């Protein structure tokens, strides 16, 4: 941001430096070892008085001069040229920190050239001893060049104490200096043998050629030990994080590591092979093959070393994209534009948003990512982002959970501009089309069952215990929640003292027409055996219930329940309807007489926004459901980040239940005790991508609560003045409350997810009360103290003590009526008029029994034929 950045697109991502550096390092290391090779062989020729060998040394020295001095020397300058163009800030840093190191290296460079010219041009004309001295001076100068540059290159990966003291010598003799010097010295000796093959293979003198091939083979093979010892020492000397990035985390290093693993032995074996007495034609070809092998080997090493430094160009000092570590706080505070030079504008407007986005890409991404090029092409990496929100979330989470990427540097507006640029310009998505369609409210026909207040003897109350049951219909790949709605009912016999009927009746349920055959809509039944170990007949739920049947008595609750009914939000007409209606009927077991009939919704949604970030789009009606692409990408991300093989399993027909590893109280799974529980893991992970969001923006990204979405699960009157965060906290708070409990339980994974999260509803992490998901929940009474009108809308951070205190499980003070029987489901407590499919859909029973949309018992005479004077259900139930 301090310097202009060359807009390279296709040739970005370090392509140019890789191109020039790999060939240079091969030749430059040869330039070091080759010096020793020349003087040693020259001395041998003198000792043996072998003019043919001496002649070879002279010829080899010409090859050596033309290769190392011209190509090696020029590409060396070329590296400097290139880094100054690709990363001027880092180049400037290295130049200024090590100016006298470079200057000293230049002296040795001059010495090398003078020595080499004299060595070659006086060959055979200078006194033997003096000529050898010149050769030795060359070698010493070349090795000193290596010595000096080695210190500076290693400084970039391991600056060591320099970070604290900024001392030249601390930076130079950094933690990997010596091991790297040993490694590179060994390598340069190996290479002089490798390059020796080329000149030796073309000798016409058969005996000399075969001798020299063996000599070169020895030169190449013997220093392997030095090189490998140096390499092992180097790895040992690496700090933990780069080591982890190289060997575990980096998505780009794996292939290079594998290449290294193969090509080190291949190089050694090929060099040994060259010692055999081979025909000259084969020797000629093989000599170039050995160089190619060496080039691949060393290229792979350099890629690993460079990528191991991610996300820095100078570790802990400057990021790859030229941002100083010390500058990050002020950028995060005031924004990138406020701090960067070379931007075309200081403010983002509607008109310049994409332009600024393009510039942000150039300044923050292009150092490592090409656009459509060979190296680190950004195109496939962002392809799945078909909307700005998802891309923005990805940028939001960069560098937090995987240390090989830097954070996005800038404020939310700038991040959005970058995301908009990527989605619009790189992915070619029309930003004027909303990623998720705005779904207008549409009233579906609904007939409220009749009730004659004067004649009817029974009040049948039925409800779904969750305000919304989500389903992941990603069955062939994984399952997070199966189709499994729980219907409850209580039958009240009206009277002066109403009575809850739990005997002699049968409560039946039947789904509305079109929803009877869920097995035709989702593939759950194909995989239920693999995922749940339950052999289910199509259409039968996990507890044996179908879409029509009878509720079972739960005597303790004094209620009837049909659990795990496999409802899906897909009627047979191919549309999406998250609020199917069930008709519930109470029948006298003996007479078969219908005692009472009512209806209730079974809220069920597949509007889970995984696709917003994982791509793939919606499967059903353009508004809901999991596509194969979305489902696979979720697994691919999990595999990448957690080292699992879920994609492979899924492709082998073995999808998994997420909660089989990550425990979850709501499904009753115990999971792997070392792993985070499911809600902590999923919220903790994704919170890192969804920080500092307004209101419930983060929540609606995944849950079906988008106000303009097809489900809009928060339907009660509370939604008029509250959102998800009032009770659950912001994404960060919510995640932290779950993670904190896991951390207290000794789960190792919690700290990593918590590191990037800051609480928002409270001042510090200490103030967050950890909680067990589905057990410790916000309670209605947090606001409605003593059942009175709520005076606050802050229910976060005070949790129910146990499952029996949950609104969905609780009874009134008499232990008679369940809270939900009279108040409706969670998130849709009466009055709940904000249902997308009709204002009456969530209030059928109040409308049926009372003619209003208030909680049941308003008036009391709904059940009590005589107005009670005693508040039996709960304080304030009579509103006295």
């Amino acid at each position: 941001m301090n310097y202009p950045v060359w807009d390279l697109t296709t040739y970005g991502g370090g392509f140019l430096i890789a191109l020039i550096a790999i060939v240079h390092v091969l030749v430059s290391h040869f330039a070091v070892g080759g010096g020793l090779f020349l003087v040693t062989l020259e001395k041998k020729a003198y000792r043996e008085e072998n003019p043919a060998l001496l002649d070879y040394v002279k010829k080899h020295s010409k090859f050596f001069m033309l290769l190392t001095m011209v190509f090696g020397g020029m590409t060396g300058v070329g590296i400097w040229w290139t880094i100054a163009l690709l990363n001027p800030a880092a180049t400037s840093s290295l130049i200024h920190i090590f100016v006298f190191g470079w200057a000293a290296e230049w002296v040795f460079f001059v010495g090398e050239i003078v020595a080499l010219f004299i060595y070659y041009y006086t060959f055979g004309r200078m006194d033997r001893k003096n000529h050898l001295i010149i050769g030795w001076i060359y070698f010493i100068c070349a090795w000193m060049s290596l010595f000096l540059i080695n210190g500076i290159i290693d400084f970039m990966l391991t600056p060591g104490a320099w970070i604290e003291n900024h001392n030249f010598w601390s930076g130079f003799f950094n933690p990997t200096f010596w091991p790297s010097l040993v490694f590179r010295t060994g390598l340069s000796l190996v290479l002089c043998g490798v390059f020796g093959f080329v000149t030796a293979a073309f000798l016409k003198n058969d005996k000399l050629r075969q001798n020299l091939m063996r000599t070169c083979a020895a030169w190449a093979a013997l220093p392997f030990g030095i090189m490998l010892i140096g390499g092992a020492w180097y790895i040992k000397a690496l700090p933990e994080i780069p080591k982890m990035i190289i060997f575990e985390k980096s998505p780009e290093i794996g292939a290079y590591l594998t290449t290294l693993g193969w090509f080190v032995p291949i190089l050694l074996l090929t060099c040994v092979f060259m010692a055999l007495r081979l025909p000259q034609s084969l020797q000629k070809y093989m000599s170039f093959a050995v160089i190619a092998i060496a080039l691949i080997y060393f290229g792979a090493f350099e890629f690993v070393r460079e990528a191991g430094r991610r996300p820095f160009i100078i570790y802990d000092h400057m990021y790859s994209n030229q941002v100083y570590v010390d500058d990050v706080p002020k950028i995060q505070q005031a924004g990138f534009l406020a701090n960067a030079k070379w931007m075309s504008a200081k403010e983002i407007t509607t008109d310049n948003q994409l332009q600024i986005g393009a510039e942000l890409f150039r300044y923050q991404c292009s150092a490592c990512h090409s656009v459509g090029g060979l190296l680190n092409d950004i195109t496939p990496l962002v392809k799945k982002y078909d909307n700005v929100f998802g891309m923005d979330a990805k940028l939001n989470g960069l560098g937090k959970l995987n240390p090989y990427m830097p954070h996005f540097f800038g404020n939310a507006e700038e991040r959005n501009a970058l995301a908009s640029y990527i989605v619009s310009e790189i992915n070619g998505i029309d930003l004027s089309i909303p990623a998720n369609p705005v779904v207008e409210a549409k009233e579906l026909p609904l007939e409220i069952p009749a009730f004659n207040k004067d004649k009817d003897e029974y009040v049948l109350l039925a409800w779904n215990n969750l305000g919304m049951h989500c389903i992941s219909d990603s069955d062939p790949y994984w399952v997070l929640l199966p189709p499994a709605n729980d219907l409850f009912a209580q039958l009240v016999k009206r009277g002066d003292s109403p009575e809850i009927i739990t005997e002699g009746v049968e409560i039946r349920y039947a789904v509305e027409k079109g929803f009877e055959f869920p097995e035709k809509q989702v593939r759950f039944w194909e995989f239920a055996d693999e995922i749940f170990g339950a052999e289910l007949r199509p259409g039968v739920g996990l507890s044996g219930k179908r879409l029509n049947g009878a509720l079972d008595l739960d005597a303790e609750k004094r209620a009837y329940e049909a659990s795990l009914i496999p409802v899906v939000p897909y009627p047979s007409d191919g549309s999406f309807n998250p609020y199917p209606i069930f008709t519930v009927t109470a029948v006298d077991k003996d007479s078969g007489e219908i005692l009472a009939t009512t209806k209730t919704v079974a809220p069920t949604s597949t509007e889970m926004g995984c696709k917003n970030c994982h791509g793939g789009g919606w499967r059903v009606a353009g508004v809901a459901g999991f596509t194969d692409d979305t489902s696979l990408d979720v697994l691919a991300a999990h595999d990448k980040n957690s080292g699992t093989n879920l994609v492979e399993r899924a492709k082998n027909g073995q999808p998994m239940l997420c909660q089989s590893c990550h425990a979850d109280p709501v499904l009753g799974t115990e999971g792997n005790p070392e792993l985070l529980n499911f809600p902590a893991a999923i919220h903790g992970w994704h919170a890192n991508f969804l920080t500092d969001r307004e209101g419930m923006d983060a929540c609606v990204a995944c849950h079906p609560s988008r106000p303009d979405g097809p489900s809009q699960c928060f339907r009660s009157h509370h939604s008029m003045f509250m959102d998800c965060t009032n009770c659950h906290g912001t994404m960060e708070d919510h995640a932290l409350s779950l993670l904190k409990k896991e951390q207290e339980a000794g789960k190792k994974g919690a700290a990593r997810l918590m590191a990037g999260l800051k609480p928002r509803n409270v001042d510090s992490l200490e103030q967050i009360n950890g909680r067990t998901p589905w057990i410790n929940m916000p309670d209605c009474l947090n606001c409605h103290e003593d059942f009175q009108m709520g005076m606050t809308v802050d229910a976060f951070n005070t949790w129910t003590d146990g499952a029996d205190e949950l609104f969905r499980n609780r009874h009134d003070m008499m232990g008679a009526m369940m809270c939900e029987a009279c108040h409706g489901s969670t998130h849709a407590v009466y009055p709940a008029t904000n249902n997308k499919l009709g204002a009456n859909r969530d209030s059928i029973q109040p409308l049926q029994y009372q003619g209003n949309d208030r909680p049941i018992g308003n008036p009391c005479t709904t059940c009590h034929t005589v107005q009670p004077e005693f508040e039996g259900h709960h304080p304030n139930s009579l509103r006295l």
Partner: protein
Amino acid sequence: MDFAALIPTPDAIPVDWGWFYVLLMVTFLLHLLVMNAMLGGGIIALFSLFQGGEQNNLLGKEVGYKLPYTIAFAVNMGVAPLLFVQVLFGQFIYSSSVMMAVWWLSIIGLLILAYYAAYIYDFKFDALQGLRTLVLIFSVGILLFIGFMFSNNMTLMLQPEKWVAYLSNPGGTLLNAEDPTLWPRYLHFVIGAVAIAGLFLALVGHFGFTKSKVDPATLIERGMSYFTKATIIQIFIGLWFLVALPKEVMMVFMGKSAYGTALLTIGLVLAVALVYFGLKRNLLLTSVVALIQMVVMILMRDLARFAYLKPYFHPADLQVTPEYSPLIFFLVVFAIGLVLIGYMIKLALGCKKEVA
């Protein structure tokens, strides 16, 4: 637009800027000498080949022997001043280089080609026959192109007011071609190179460092002739360059600064003296005065740089974070290097005598 706002914040330096200034001047002089011998030598060889005739061809061959050395050392001696200019003016030269990155990076690939072409010209001079001219045109043409790129960058780096062009063209293809000083500056360097290379060849002839069978006396005569003619042209180009400078820069040499004015005056006097000595074919005196003249020119060049950058920056503004031990280390290495090089040259010269 506030152009100064574009200028990157420079890094701190470890010792007083004066050290780097001196090192820059000294190493740039070395680079200039070798670069002139290389570029000017190549141009002279081309002219000679065009003219034809035995001595001209031999002159072309003699240059051929020298070309690989001079390219190697021109690059080698260029490393140090480029290092020190990055230390003192990094925020300017990195920025301008990025703006013309495509051109700037092409230098490396082209230089390798020119270098190998020079070796082909050297090693295969006789075998190439008529093709040798084409090979030399290729090599010298590239060197001239590289020089032109340097002139572009060295002028673009001094003018942050032109950098705003980057905002609409970040692709690295900008040049500073419309700058009125560009052509006179470039020609000033090229013609100067011909003059100094002429002297270089004359000195080669004078001290018997010829490798071809070229007649030393002819070499001295041709060399001095090229020097003199080029210097006469150089006076006019220099004046063109002077008047093309922005007024505030030009005035530094025209009365505003006593030091600048003195340098220009000395330069003009020395130029006339050089023409006189050249016409007189007084090689050694000409060489000594030419060396002084080059020092004067280098100091003037740097004064112009300061004048250009005056609204924005002076190296004295650089923050110093004192650390002297690396400087001492360098000076020791430098001294050892000089001794080693001296020793090697002694051995090489001794060897020449033995062979002779």
